């Protein structure tokens, strides 16, 4: 079912002063790729907590659509060696309305995850090792939703070039990354990150046979608290099946005073 966390699809970066000027990036391609990932992460540090609503529109090759809706809250984990805490409550489809998912994310180990089923008032600890399965039947895999901590990948800088559509006016670092955690469905991902705000603009996912499987485009970035960028539209296209999923975030709120008490098993029972 809803095994994985959807922690921050919310890929983002802060507008604080860069840690280094562009010319100071290391020469070695692996070190350079890592430095770009670290810079992206550094610019989003300190968001504290956030809440938001998400809507996904799933499209098959015949153009038929299906809708998913959920609400999410996230608590930033200040420990860079560990993942964030998140709580998701599903609103659509209606047959799973009220189902809640609590995730204590980790970097390379499996996340701790509990699902609450309100119809039977049952809390279940669930396996989170299905990284490559589809999230709610969409083109997003569970691992695509996980928070993108730097330590989850090895990196290789490929080149700098004009960013892909619709950001062709910007310059992008093109970095390949290789999942280090077990159970990934990908051999590699290619990430286009702009050189100004260090925001991810596009990701290409290559499957285990190294075919280009999917392309993700980040759109409608907005700035919160003068510091944190959030993409409001994420478009995932599956090149092998022709199916696609449009994901939109709304009602972002930051630093509303959430604490660890909002991410416990007790709070899962009454998450609704």
């Amino acid at each position, binding site marked *: *079912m809803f095994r994985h966390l959807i922690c921050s699809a919310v890929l983002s970066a802060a507008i604080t002063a860069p840690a280094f000027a562009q010319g100071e990036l290391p020469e070695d391609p692996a070190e350079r790729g890592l430095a770009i990932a670290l810079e992206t992460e550094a610019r989003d540090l300190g968001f504290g907590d956030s809440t938001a609503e998400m809507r996904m529109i*799933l499209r*098959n090759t015949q153009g038929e659509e*299906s*809708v998913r809706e959920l609400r999410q809250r996230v608590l930033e984990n200040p420990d860079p060696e560990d993942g964030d805490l998140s709580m998701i409550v599903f609103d*659509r*489809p*209606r*047959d799973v*309305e*009220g189902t809640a998912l609590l995730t204590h994310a980790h970097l390379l180990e*499996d996340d*701790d995850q509990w699902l609450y089923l309100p119809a*039977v*008032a*049952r*809390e279940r*600890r*669930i*396996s989170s*090792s*299905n990284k*490559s*399965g*589809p999230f709610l*039947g969409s083109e997003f895999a569970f691992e695509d939703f996980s928070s993108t901590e730097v330590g989850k990948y090895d990196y290789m800088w490929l080149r700098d070039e004009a960013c892909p559509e619709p950001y062709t006016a910007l310059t992008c670092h093109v970095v390949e990354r290789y999942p280090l955690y*077990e*159970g990934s*469905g990908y051999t590699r991902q290619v990430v286009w990150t702009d050189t100004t705000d260090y925001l991810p603009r596009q990701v290409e996912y290559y499957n285990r046979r190294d075919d280009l499987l999917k392309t993700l485009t980040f759109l409608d970035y907005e700035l919160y608290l003068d510091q944190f960028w959030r993409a409001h539209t994420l478009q995932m296209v599956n090149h092998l099946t022709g199916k696609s999923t449009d994901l939109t975030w709304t009602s972002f709120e930051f630093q509303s005073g959430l604490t660890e*008490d909002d991410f*416990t*098993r*007790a*709070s899962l029972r*009454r998450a*609704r």
Partner: protein
Amino acid sequence: MYRGIFTTIAAICAATAASPAFADVETDYSGYVEPELQLFFEDPSDARQSNDNLSVAGQLEIEIFLNPDHTLVFTPFGRIDSRDDERTHFDLREAYYEGVFDHFELRVGLKRVFWGRTEAAHLIDVINQTDNLESIDGEDKLGQPMVNLTFPTDFGIFDFYWLPYFREREFPGVEGRPRFDIPVAEDMALFESDQEEEHQDFAARWSHYAGAWDFGLSHFYGTSRDPLFVPGVDKNFSPILIPYYPLMHQSSVDVQATFGPMLYKFEGFHRWQMDENWTQATGGIEYSFYGIFDTPSDLGIVAEYVWDERGEDAMNPFQSDVFAGLRWSANDIQSTTILGGGIFDMDGNGYALSVEAERRFGEDFFLQVETRFFVDVPASDPLASFADDDFLQVRLARYF
């Protein structure tokens, strides 16, 4: 007492609604209507029963958010059955107030509570009465009147329950199917306690986790939700079964270990009831294969063993039984799932098979198809009455 709970809830509603602290009350409605068709493959053992049945069920859930910390929940449920008047029934699955305070949470009213870890037998889940009219799998429950205090701490969650009113199990009428061959005379129910339904029951539970381990300890004192049956005769000297509800103490333990795709589950209790005391336990594994045959679909395997210290003498269908199940999830847009399983008596006393398939249609329709077969069940087994009640059931819910 039962009425007292409603009065209390109504008073809380009235008090909170009138208070200026609850100026931003939000209300959320949802629910479903679900027609059901049942087809039985064999002729019934009683001429008053039929080979087909139509009914319709519906549930409404109303959540009233007085403010972020105070909520009222009402979940009325009902079914209208075309053949069995007893199965036409109504229940308040939930009707409670929930308050979240600095160091505790309070819930007052009718509520569902689930205790347990395993998939096949729910041995330690003793707070709510089973809604025996909805399904013979024991998964449906009646709302239980309670006052529940919850203390979330760094050492786990402590729950205390005061259960001021007992709800009897309901049984299908003579037209109903599946049912016991000998009708159950609900209105003649007997209790060990002189206070009958008004015996005050109490329960407590502690649950916690550490790393891959989740665990709990629970104790219950009060009227057993599982009736014993006393043979009797009605006015016409036809045989009937009279439910007898003893008092019991039950201590239980439950554990789950989650290692990647492998889950280990265990739950067991020791019960003191009448002049007896005994242990029952169940445990097993669940393992998932993800992305099988190069598709997005998953295959899960569940294997559990159910054991009763009392052996074959006990009026318990599961005294040494193995449950084996396969769950296939397509992980498609329609959430297609098929669950097939069997319960096999290790002493050679027959087995039961079931297949449940479900799928969403469009946005708001949900189809469930279920079939159950009982094979080689000897007349001495408590499940023998169901031996000629193999059936196919189709439910199509419209959610709103």
